[in-house]
């Protein structure tokens, strides 16, 4: 059992506050992704869990044990670094065996575990090589194998795929997901790549400016962003936003059309819709097409609604040219509303 509890963890570097009182619970064997733009504090949070950084305040618990004052080696974790951190003076075999030798395991056990994890990561033919003789992808595999060989309660990964080329990243992503699901460890994975986050995570914690804005399943984060930031950060292209004003009849007016809004909402809200949740029909938002990008399966239409940038993902059969007037109807159950002041979702 390795449930991770983070209670009120904050971190300041001088006058800069990297993390504002983070509370997060990660279940045993859960795959949690920390997602955010660079500088949002995701790596700092990971390093605090690893013990490479100490929190200014707050507590970290791993598997029912408080660990925030313990050194990394006593936390039952293994970590995969962004730059792999494969020891250049040791062979691949000795790299994978490094942690096991520190645990003083008998040679037979070391050998079994090294062979098993090397096989798992498809690097059994590289065991005698040195780091300098490996490609980036192979080094990545060694780093993961080294972490897995420890059979840790928790695996921490800091942007492990960001230094690989696009194709290799895709391949490794699928492989990692499979390997980690079988290893039955709790995983915390830091990335700025939302596709990686969506495809790997059981749950995503979206971070911004040292706060966790939302922690939920990938689909939930995508469909029901808890805050405007999540909607604008996740999804490619991101959500569309338009100002909305409540009328006397209780409905909200958005760029000339009236829509049913939330009953709790104030007089002014922000209307939000994903580009793919728009259809062409009469009585919709009046949009002037500006740029047409056929993407094969769909066509991305960048347009202007009420002078604001507005994107729609439409069927590629649609014949549309720059300057055309379109009437875009939002799917009623996919419309989201955000408070203008707090940026939080309003239901």
């Amino acid at each position, binding site marked *: 059992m390795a449930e991770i509890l983070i209670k009120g963890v904050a971190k300041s570097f001088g006058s800069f506050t990297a993390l504002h009182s983070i509370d997060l619970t990660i279940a045993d064997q859960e795959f949690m992704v920390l997602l955010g733009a660079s500088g949002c504090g995701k790596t700092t949070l990971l390093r605090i869990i*690893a*013990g*490479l950084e100490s929190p200014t305040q707050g507590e970290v618990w791993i598997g029912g044990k408080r660990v925030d004052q313990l*050194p*990394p*080696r006593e936390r039952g*974790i*293994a*970590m995969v*670094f*962004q*730059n792999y*951190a494969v*020891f*250049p*003076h040791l062979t691949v075999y000795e790299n994978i065996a*490094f*942690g096991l030798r*520190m*645990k003083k395991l008998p040679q037979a056990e070391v050998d079994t575990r090294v062979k098993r994890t090397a096989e798992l990561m498809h690097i059994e033919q590289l065991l005698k090589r040195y780091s300098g003789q490996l490609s980036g992808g192979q080094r990545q595999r060694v780093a993961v194998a*080294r972490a897995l060989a*420890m059979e840790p309660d928790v695996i*921490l990964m800091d942007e492990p795929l960001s230094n690989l080329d696009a194709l290799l990243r895709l391949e490794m992503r699928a492989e990692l997901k499979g390997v980690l699901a079988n290893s039955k460890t709790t995983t915390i994975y830091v990335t700025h790549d939302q596709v990686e986050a969506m495809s790997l995570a059981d749950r995503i914690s979206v971070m911004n400016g040292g706060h966790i804005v939302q922690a939920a399943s990938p689909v939930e984060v995508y469909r029901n962003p808890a805050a405007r930031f999540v909607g604008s950060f996740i999804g490619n292209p991101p959500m569309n936003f338009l100002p909305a004003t409540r009328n006397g009849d209780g409905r909200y007016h958005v760029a000339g059309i009236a829509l049913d809004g939330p009953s709790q909402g104030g007089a002014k809200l922000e209307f939000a819709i994903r580009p793919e949740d728009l259809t062409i029909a009469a009585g919709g938002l009046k949009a002037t097409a500006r740029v047409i990008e056929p993407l094969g399966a769909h066509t991305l239409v960048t347009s202007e609604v009420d002078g604001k940038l507005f994107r729609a993902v439409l069927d590629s059969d649609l014949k549309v040219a720059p300057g055309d007037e379109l009437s875009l109807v939002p799917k009623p159950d996919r419309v989201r509303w955000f408070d203008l002041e707090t940026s939080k979702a309003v239901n």
Partner: protein
Amino acid sequence: MSGAVATADKPRAVSDIGSAGKFLFWAGVVLLCAWVLVPIYLLAVNTLSSPQQVTAFPKTGVPSFDMGSIQFFLSFEGVLKALWNSVLVAVLTMILSIAIGAPAGYALSRFEFPGKATFRMLVLMTRAFPLPLLALPIAVMFIRIGLDDTPIGLALVHTTLAIPFAVLITFSIFSGIPLELEEAAWTLGCNRLQAFHKVVLPLVLPGITASAIFAFTISWNEVFAASVLTVQNRTLTAFLLQSLSVSPLHLRFAGGAALVIPALIFIFAVRKYMFAMWGIANR
């Protein structure tokens, strides 16, 4: 803007400098090489020539490989003892400057602490005081505490000369080892000391060795402090300074060669780390 103006204004590439530029370049190269190599060459030729040839004229410029000068030099009263003193002092200097300099270099590259920039400056500042200025007070102090005329006393002075280099070289070597490697070792079960021993040390050992050899040569070449602080236990440099001014010419050449050649070989062996000291990754 017209195209003609744009092309006329283009700076010339380094590769198409004119023949005058090329001549200047090669003249500079030759001059600098000659500046360093000619004295060494003359030293070597005269060392390897018989005493008669050294004083004879005209010179052939080719050594006759006569070992007379060297043999005479080595059997000269006190040379071997001075040689032994030199080695002893240099080895002590080497050990002391690495023992003190390497931890300082590690701290500079790995920790943030108040006054770090000042500390780096101060390390360099130790070279700002000319040794003649310090030699007399040091000599007086050494006599009072009984360190005068001992290898360890001289080694202490040489260590202060070598430490700025030891700190700077090891600082740049440690900085070249990614912190992530150490962190990886910590997460794999090492404490700070074990991580240093198992990961950092094997990677920095060649550089540390180079830094040690450099400290050795600094001590080996140092003449001023050695002359002031030793009387009976003279190092080779101090011994030669004292006795060679009254020796025949061929003997001076042999003594000079005995000093220059080891230093030259050592520095040549560690040259790439000397570049590293200034942060130039020139291999």
